């Protein structure tokens, strides 16, 4: 499907954009949407965009490549992969954007607040960060280092992390068994989106090697904890 890039917003360090997409094709938080610019012959790779927070009722996707501009024509496919699913019973929810902006995790705010859960964003941004001003006051922001003390408090933790950073996460969550539910959005290249079984997006889990493009990009934390490669 060919659509138009309607608008670009700079949010913190990232570029988010509004594409003209029917609501039934909007990705869930954590799902990805394969997109490709119509007129860049030197860029043969598809760009996988994620739902991010924006303003109002529009769907914002990010991170937008630098050279995509409002008015450009963009090819899209329906959303793919598994998104986040917060357990209905979760009352104490944590978000952990690991060394990255919380843009991709913040679309979970709505569900969390609707089920009256308390929400802590574990994030080390400066106090005046652009994104902090967009958050409802009920959201508590705490430094990443405080996560270790809060492991008992949490019911559910949503993480956004690059594949290569998983060993660092293991150090942060260094207890053998986690006392809460959690999910991770694994950020990795997904050039074939599962068409080719190329294996670039491979993630080692307790169930064996899986592919972020089709089995993820959101995985159960318990299936990756101390296992992932």
């Amino acid at each position: 499907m060919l659509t138009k890039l309607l608008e670009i917003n700079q949010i913190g360090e990232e570029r988010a954009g509004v594409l003209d997409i029917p609501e039934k094709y909007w990705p869930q938080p954590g799902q990805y949407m394969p997109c490709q610019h119509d007129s860049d012959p030197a860029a043969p790779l598809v760009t996988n965009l994620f739902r991010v927070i924006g303003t109002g009722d529009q769907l914002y996707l990010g991170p937008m490549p630098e050279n995509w501009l409002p008015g450009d024509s963009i090819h899209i496919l329906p959303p793919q992969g598994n998104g986040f699913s917060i357990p209905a019973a979760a009352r104490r929810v944590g978000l952990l954007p690991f060394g990255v902006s919380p843009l991709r995790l913040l679309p979970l705010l709505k569900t969390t607040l609707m089920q009256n859960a308390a929400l802590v964003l574990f994030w080390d941004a400066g106090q005046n960060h652009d994104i902090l001003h967009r958050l409802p006051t009920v959201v508590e922001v705490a430094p990443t280092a405080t996560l270790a003390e809060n492991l008992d408090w949490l019911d559910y933790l949503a993480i956004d992390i690059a594949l290569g950073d998983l060993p660092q996460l293991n150090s942060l969550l260094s207890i053998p068994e986690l006392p809460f539910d959690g999910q991770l959005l694994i950020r990795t290249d997904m050039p074939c989106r599962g068409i080719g079984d190329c294996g670039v997006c491979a993630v080692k889990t307790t169930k064996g090697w899986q592919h972020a493009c089709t089995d993820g990009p959101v995985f159960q934390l318990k299936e990756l904890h101390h296992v992932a490669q």
Partner: protein
Amino acid sequence: MWLNEDDPIHKRDLFFSKPFVNSPGTLGFAPDPHKMPVIANLGAFITHPISRKPRQPASNRACIPFPGGFLLHTGLPNPGITRTISRYKHAWAGASLPIIVHLLVEDPGSLAEMIRKLERLENVMAVELGLPPNCDPDALRSLMDAAIGELPIIPCVSPDQIPVLRETLLALNPTAVHLVEPRGVLPDEAGNLITGRLCGPGIFPTMLHASRELLDVSFPLIVNGGMNSKLQADTFLNAGVTALGLGSVLWQLKQAFLA
């Protein structure tokens, strides 16, 4: 021996109803018309590289863009020949197009073993040999010998292998030769150097150059060429190439020229 001496057993004719194939590794292990409508435009389906034993993903797996394309390094993970056959032989048999099985070749012994497992599988049209990067003429000769059997054999060579293997290929005169993408090196985000295949429209002039080094030969040529336009495809076909291997274009959302 009931065969004519002039007609060696590994020499078979290949027929492609359409002059396109996918390059190995681009469409997985078996055609799936729902996930990949493009197969309606292909004359044969080439599988992901399959090895004797299972292979795991490379620890430094990566897809690194560069101007004109991207470098792909995966370690060629696959479940190994035995599991691949049991998982996919029915999909191969029922496919709407013939299957070419791409084998990741390590040594003559394990190659012969793999080939034997593939013989008599329904709808398997040929076997492709993915040669080790530093394959020399002697190694090629013993691999081709080991591969002799009931199936036509298609060795894959990359442009940098042509100067070394050209004479041997001429002498062996295989059913066909598949000219595949060159290898390259790029630093990943952490600065580590990664070796892998180069894909994308930027390799077109390299592949066109390489294909002309082989066009005076007697065997048909399949060429992967970074093609993303009808003009480029026609350039190869007019130059005498038998079939075109499509790579990065198969992963793109715009495949206009195939429609």
